[in-house]
């Protein structure tokens, strides 16, 4: 049997305790143990950004993070961001600007965009493009995503 460890952390504003395999990554914990599937598996190597979450206010690839390392930390997923109203302007901007096609990269893109906007209020296009350089999208060509993020801050 693989080694388990109990961790306690805040997930989308709610304190919770969970027993995880020590070798498990945070992406697998979120999807397979906790059942939040908004965070996506795209590559498992930190190259695509589909699994982006926020931990203690910084965006991270959840596939590159051991689940045990969530212990004592504050974790936000797309479900948390989408539900607490704080990112409504951003989500609306993604919809209005046509930033969504197949949508598979979108939750990770939104999580990263939210982080970019917190770090760089009123960003220009170049700043946004660099900000989402770790998020791959195969459908949109990024332009409408960049437009949406730039516009969201002005909203």
């Amino acid at each position, binding site marked *: 049997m693989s080694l388990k460890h109990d961790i306690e952390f805040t997930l989308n504003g709610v304190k919770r305790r969970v027993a995880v395999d*020590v070798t498990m990554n945070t992406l697998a914990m979120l999807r397979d143990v906790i059942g939040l599937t908004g965070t996506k598996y795209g590559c498992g190597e930190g190259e695509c950004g589909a699994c982006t979450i926020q931990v203690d206010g*910084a965006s991270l690839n959840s596939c*590159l*993070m051991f689940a045990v390392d969530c212990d004592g930390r504050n974790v936000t997923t797309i479900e948390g961001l989408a539900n607490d109203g704080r990112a409504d302007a951003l989500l609306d901007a993604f919809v209005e600007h046509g930033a969504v096609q197949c949508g598979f990269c979108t939750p990770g893109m939104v999580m990263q965009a939210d982080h970019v906007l917190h770090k760089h209020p009123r960003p220009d296009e170049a700043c946004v493009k660099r900000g989402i350089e770790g998020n791959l999208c195969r459908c949109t060509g990024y332009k409408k995503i960049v437009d949406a993020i730039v516009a969201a801050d002005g909203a």
Partner: protein
Amino acid sequence: MTELKHYFAPTSLDQAVECLKDGDVTILAGGTDLTPQSQAGRVKIKHTLMNVRHIPQLSGITLEGREIRIGALATITEIMEHPLVKEHLPVLVEACDHFASDQIRNAGTIGGNICNASPAGDTLIPLLVLNASVELASMPEAKLYRHSMPLSTFFVGPGKTRKSLCELVTCVRIPVPAENHVARFYKHGTRPALDISTISIGVAGTLKDGVMSNVRVAFGAVAPTPVRASQTEQALEGQRLDAATIDKVAAVARDEVKPIDDVRATAWYRKEMIHNITKRILSHVAQA
């Protein structure tokens, strides 16, 4: 499937080095490399997985005398945004800016980047030309022991360093550059970041009255480790940065490196780039 038997998250350096004593420990810091490597089975986690995140002695970026101390847990983002680094070590900021992606910069640590010892590690080239040293802690007897070694002697091969299994990297120390210090970094890839370097080049030294001295040159992705380029340094040391010198130094650099062919580039192209970019960097320094 693994012999992992123990997870440990020490809250002090003493606890950590005590744990390292038996050497059968895998150290977890930012996790950006260990997580995918272990998931894919390319790295096997040892008896104990030790998460060093909660050790306060590994954090922080401070000025200590004439050295800037960067704690091993400092993330790439923390480094590039820190006022001390921005003021004194802009070349390191530039390298950090080319490092992977924002998400990875937010998680990846300087200690991890050093211990991974990638031949193409983005922060390693500026650290080499900034004459950084690395501090290691261990507990050979019952007492915490620390010692330093120059980063230039730290790397042994891809993923291999002189750090023993019982040691923990606690920080890097970088001398505050003196007056007239110049430093440049160039990463050759096709993207601003999220790209493994085809080659990278760091050049640093004192530029006074058009003459370069205290020269340090380092190259990435042309050898099994990031390397200092002694012949290139010698060719540049004490020379006036005129067109003839620059041409000569660039040619020495091209001849000095012994890169290999891989999926990113051929050895021939890497040598060409070492030549052309060295020339470009030195021309910029001369014009600045």
